[in-house]
């Protein structure tokens, strides 16, 4: 009985060690984890898609420029809603927003290293379609 219990204890310890080892080995690199924890999207882009300094700077600039375009779209949609514009007008504004956003993501992807751009688009483009008018979508990203 003592030997059986000792064996079971050793099996449990082996299982726990194996769990811990594979858990640590399977986590994302520390830099990516840090960016995800901090909610820092640009840091995440840099680490997740292996951007070098010029690529990172160019993408950061692209985002900053697009933030102004996005704010313009936002203002237009809100103004249309405020004045009670017909749904078709609001839908047209939303379509403009989606088109601009898609183009922006494609421009960002084009600045990324080979292979990474496609991966980036595969992650972000489905999120555009996630929008629904009832509230936040249930997003799931599969790497």
């Amino acid at each position, binding site marked *: 009985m003592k*030997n*059986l219990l*000792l*064996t079971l204890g*050793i*099996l*449990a310890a*082996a*299982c*726990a*060690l*194996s*769990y*811990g*080892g*594979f*858990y*640590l*080995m*399977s*986590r*994302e690199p520390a830099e*990516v*984890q840090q*960016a*995800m*924890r901090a*909610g820092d*999207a640009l840091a*995440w882009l840099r680490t997740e898609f292996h951007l070098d300094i010029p690529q990172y700077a160019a993408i950061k600039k692209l*985002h900053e420029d*697009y*933030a102004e375009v*996005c*704010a313009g*779209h*936002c203002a*237009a*949609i*809100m103004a249309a*809603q405020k004045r009670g514009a017909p749904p078709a007008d609001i839908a047209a504004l*939303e379509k403009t*927003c*989606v088109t601009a*956003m898609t183009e*922006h993501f494609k421009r960002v992807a084009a600045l990324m290293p080979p292979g990474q751009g496609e991966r980036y688009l595969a*992650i*972000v483009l489905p*999120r*555009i379609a*996630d*929008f629904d008018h009832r*509230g*936040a*979508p249930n*997003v*799931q*990203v*599969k*790497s």
Partner: protein
Amino acid sequence: MNTPDPEEPLSRTLADWRVTPPRHPHFRPDVWSRIEAARRAPTWTGYVRAHGALVAGALMLAMVLGAWTGRERARERDAAARATLVADYVHSLDARWMRLP
């Protein structure tokens, strides 16, 4: 303390009480055989050698189970963190989300 009265029935009964256990002719050999059995009990290494295939299989299973659950847990955690970040990132560039309450 009061001295019990020898004339009291309980004291008399206790004074007369004799325990006469039945003889156990194999008592000594039984005790020795148990001592010998305990001495001959296999060590843990002996136990493992005796059940080699079973222990090796269980060890393999435990390690595979640990590895698989560890890897899945790590992936789940990273996927959840990434999903939140990607959603926030895309929404921050999506004018449609900005008008939601």
